[in-house]
């Protein structure tokens, strides 16, 4: 198993088909790209050709949305096989997915569904992460999701659950700054409790994204620019964790590449202010 902590890649974007030609014909100030694994589980054509060209030029990480690590249905070995095949082609710096489930009994609800923070769920997830890591031959990176409900049966906080999964399964974490902000608002906890509650040495990537505010709750829609409150929390996150590969995540209402590069520059600027250029450059 590849056990070394993944490197700091700098500041990246999620690869979206709308931007293929702008990326390949220009030289945008983007250090690396994250690709949605499922979008490239196809046989050929333009998607695979673009992917190969991006992989030739940039460091790439793979981000899945349907591993369903917390589902009580059996692990989908066919999916894992396809993930492994794609990884052999992409040679990603790491492979991530979400600490959630997406369906049971063969149904995919195409959503990142919440887990009760119980000892039972913890044991189940830890066991599954270990199995997936054995199949992939590498450590998995797991992301905290946004959630809209909490369960009466939960026995611990989300950050305790996330930390226990990471420590017991020996996996890495993707700290989604926006998801922590959204869930903290929805469930009334402090973003700093979450920040201080996860093991610092396990975090290898940040996501920063926009959301939709519905007054009584926030929905993680990834269809808006990052809001000032999330930037403020990003600042605290960088101060806490130090240099961690950072990515702007936009999935809907996708703007021109230049707008996202500008948001990414904003993230870079905050990291430089907080950490100082020498520390950032040394990490790179």
């Amino acid at each position, binding site marked *: 198993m590849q056990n070394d902590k993944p490197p700091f890649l700098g500041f990246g974007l999620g690869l979206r088909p709308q931007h293929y030609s702008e990326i390949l014909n220009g030289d945008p100030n983007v250090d690396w790209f994250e690709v949605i694994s499922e979008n490239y589980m196809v046989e050929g054509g333009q998607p695979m050709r673009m992917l190969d060209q991006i992989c030739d030029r940039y460091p790439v990480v793979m981000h899945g949305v349907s591993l369903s690590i917390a589902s009580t249905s059996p692990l989908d070995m066919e999916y894992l096989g396809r993930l492994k095949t794609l990884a052999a082609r992409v040679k990603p710096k790491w492979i991530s997915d979400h600490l959630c489930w997406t369906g*049971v009994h063969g149904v995919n*609800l*195409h959503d990142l569904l919440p887990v009760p923070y119980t000892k039972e769920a913890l044991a189940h997830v830890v066991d599954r992460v270990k199995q997936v890591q054995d199949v992939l031959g590498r450590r998995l990176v797991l992301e905290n999701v946004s959630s809209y409900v909490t369960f009466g049966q939960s026995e611990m906080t989300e950050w305790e659950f996330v930390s226990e999964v990471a420590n017991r399964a020996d996996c890495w974490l993707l700290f989604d700054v926006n998801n922590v902000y959204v869930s903290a608002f929805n469930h009334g906890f402090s973003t700093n409790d979450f920040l201080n509650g996860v093991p610092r040495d396990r975090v290898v990537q940040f996501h920063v994204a926009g959301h939709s505010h519905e007054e009584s709750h926030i929905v993680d829609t990834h269809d808006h620019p990052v809001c000032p409150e999330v930037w403020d929390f990003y600042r605290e996150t960088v101060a806490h964790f130090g240099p961690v590969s950072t990515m702007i995540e936009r999935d809907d209402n996708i703007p021109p590449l230049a707008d996202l590069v500008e948001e990414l520059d904003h993230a870079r600027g905050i990291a430089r202010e907080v950490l100082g250029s020498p520390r950032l450059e040394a990490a790179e």
Partner: protein
Amino acid sequence: MSGLKELQEKFQRGILAGDDAVLAEINDSAKEERETLFGVYRYAYVARLAEVLADDYEVTHSYVGDGTFAKLVKAYIAAHPSDRRSARDFGRHMPAFLSATAPFAAHPELAEIASLEKALADAFDAADAEPLTVAMLAEIAPEDWPKLIFTPHPAARRFTFTTNAAEIWTALHNEAAPPKAKTLPEPQAILVWRQDVTARFRPIGPEEAMMWDEAVQGTRFGVLCEMVATFAGEDGAELRAATYLKDWADTGMLAGYQIAARPSR
């Protein structure tokens, strides 16, 4: 209190079937009631899949209009819960659904428009293969020609339409007013394929369709020429067969050839 498995089953039924049993497991937040909070998941499931179908069946959508498309999407989502990892596969039953479900089945052009959209999407990311070019054909020794067996490009597929769905698709794709739907006097053969990275289709005549269907089953070129002669007359049969072949090679529909060791038929 439910175990994890039971909780996930309740949660899923709550989304798919509107079952409220899961609400007993969920807390109200300080700002909102649990029904509303769980409703975010219910809403997102339908909204996300509706968006997938609207992207995959853009022309079908513009043909039937927003109101009917919304009904169609609702009925499809209820009939076909997603069972694949990739949302790309969610709408794959749409042509069959439209030909089998009232009131859509009464308009046979609908299933054919959807079928064409799906075929183009499938061709777009089908497997890659180096296309067989006219230059490569030109290098084949004359004595080998009768023994040639062609391999279609993995993206190429043949369809038969009974309506003017292809014409309607073209008009809507070009943002023009579509012609009135009609049943064709004779079924129309359509070839869908990918040229470089672009998915394309074209209607073909009955003779070319016959030759394509035989060619992709491994019939040797010598026999294909005989079949073309039988189909529409011996005069110029070889030239017609060669012209079809050149068109296929010119547009990337073939991926290679073999020279048969001995006559297959």
